[in-house]
């Protein structure tokens, strides 16, 4: 009898495509919500991305009761507490998070406080603390990479202790993720590239790491295909709405995949690099992906070979000898990185970032070894292994 076993869970309603934002009023009222609060950041507001959201709601007679637009890139317990106070003062009854990972995580954390009560979000840190459904919560992503709109986790910095507090519960999942191509049309090229590489990494690790399963595989391969087919088109033609929608959907699908099958060493190294060198997460993913795939190669040869079909299409897949497909998949990812470097100078090596010192590599390696995602990497990783990968990624 097989020892295989998996769990898969994604109750988020995905509302995607043309005029998706205009579905928000109906979806909110169907959950008996009438007084929504928007949580976002200054960049999103300055880019005018709130305007279509507000217009869509007001056009249906639904007023946005309050807008908090001061979420910082690394949200903190203080910010969450402050937003919860505004929510209560304005008697809001639902939350719409509009933005990238930080705004979405902040929305999740605020939803805990306003639903469960209290002023200190730190008290709810950990896994499985929440036991009941929270207030209606919608997410409108403005980047196409994190997949936070379909994950059941949030990370908030404890302002007093200076540590990152994890929150994990199925109740953190939003009621709906609204994927509208208008929200990513104005993303600058280097952010478009880095966030798409984040999505590609989520999908690739979901498809090749230990907790892979048939359902997450389906989402992961579809996400890889969409990124491969659309990323360079969007880089060349940023106002391509269809391409933008493809990337946004890829991000959501990759999010569904990795939240059910976890990620591996690329994320362990990326989290450590982000913490030590303050590099954006998507860039870290792009930097490490091919090197980690090379390290894991003999453990993941079969799924990595299959991935070639989704990276390069049926012609290249069938023309490549079966024994060379895994290596061809890595080459395909390297080629994509080279193309992105040509178009927006997205760094391919740690050296090219100009923000990492060679002397920091050991600290990165040590921190990566204790990262939770390393558990799901198909190969055991020693300090020496991590250093070897980092040295390869250096030059």
């Amino acid at each position: 009898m097989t020892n295989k076993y998996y769990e898969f869970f994604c109750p988020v309603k995905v509302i995607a495509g043309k005029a998706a934002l205009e579905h928000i009023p109906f979806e909110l009222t169907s959950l008996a919500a009438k007084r929504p609060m928007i949580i976002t950041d200054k960049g999103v507001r300055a880019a005018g991305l709130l305007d279509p959201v507000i217009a869509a709601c007001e056009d249906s007679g639904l007023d946005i009761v309050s807008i908090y637009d001061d979420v910082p890139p690394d949200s903190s317990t203080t910010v969450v507490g402050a937003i919860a106070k505004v929510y209560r003062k304005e008697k809001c009854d639902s939350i719409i998070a509009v933005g990238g990972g930080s705004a979405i995580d902040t929305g999740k954390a605020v939803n805990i406080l306003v639903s469960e009560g209290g002023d200190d979000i730190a008290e709810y840190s950990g896994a499985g603390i929440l036991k009941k459904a929270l207030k209606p919560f919608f997410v409108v992503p403005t980047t196409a990479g994190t997949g936070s709109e379909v994950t059941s986790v949030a990370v908030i910095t404890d302002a007093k202790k200076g540590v990152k507090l994890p929150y994990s519960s199925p109740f953190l999942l939003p009621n709906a993720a609204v994927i509208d191509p208008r929200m990513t049309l104005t993303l600058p090229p280097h952010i478009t590239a880095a966030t798409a590489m984040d999505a590609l990494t989520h999908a690739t690790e979901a498809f090749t790491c230990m907790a892979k399963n048939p359902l997450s595989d389906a989402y992961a391969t579809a996400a890889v295909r969409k990124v491969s087919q659309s990323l360079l088109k969007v880089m060349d033609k940023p106002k391509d709405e269809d391409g933008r929608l493809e990337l946004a959907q890829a991000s959501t699908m990759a999010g569904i995949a990795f939240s059910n099958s976890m990620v591996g060493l690329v994320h362990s190294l990326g989290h450590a690099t982000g913490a030590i060198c303050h590099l954006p997460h998507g860039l870290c993913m792009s930097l490490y992906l091919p090197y980690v795939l090379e390290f894991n190669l003999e453990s993941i040869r079969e799924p990595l070979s299959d991935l070639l079909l989704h990276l390069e299409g049926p012609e290249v897949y069938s023309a490549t000898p079966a024994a060379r497909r895994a290596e061809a998949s890595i080459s395909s990812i390297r080629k994509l990185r080279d193309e992105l470097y040509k178009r927006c100078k997205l760094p391919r090596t740690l050296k090219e970032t100009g923000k990492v010192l060679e002397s920091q590599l050991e600290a990165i390696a040590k921190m990566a070894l204790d990262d939770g995602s390393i558990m799901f990497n198909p190969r055991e990783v020693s300090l020496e292994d991590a250093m070897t990968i980092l040295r390869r990624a250096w030059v």
Partner: protein
Amino acid sequence: MLSKRLQPIAFQARRAYVDLMFQVMGRALQAITEVDETAREETRFLPVGFLFEMQVMPAGPKLIVEHTGDGRLQYLGDEASRPVDLSIQFKHMAHAFLVMSFQEKTAVAFAHDRMLVDGDVSLAIKMTRVLNRLEAFILPKLVAERAVKEYPATLNLPNKLLNAARIYLKVATNLVETVRA
């Protein structure tokens, strides 16, 4: 019909086996931090007085060890005077049995959602590495390869045998002392 009658006995035997393995593992965790510097390099990062627990939910067998300083762990049995700092919990006795009978690697059990971590995940990763190293020492290589993600390439036979003997001796001594007490 017969299998239905035998089922409660099988469940009891499974529970007894997991209980015994937890007792051995708890004592062996203490022993490995007394004999192996590599294991101590991991546990040294734990705060002094740190309590680590492995248990089967909801109220099954349990082992608790305490970091007493300099990377040394002390086996406390299945009770502690204060709440534990880190707990790795099997969702069901059947899942604990799969791991304890080396039918499923610890990492695979995590991947299969058989276990939960309550506490600092990075410390759970450290403790899992110590458990893996322990299994690599005390189990025959063929069995250890079924228990850990990758059998350590640097672990040579004399080193394995010597450390295994020292760990088993300490476990046996501790067991005898417990029985006498």
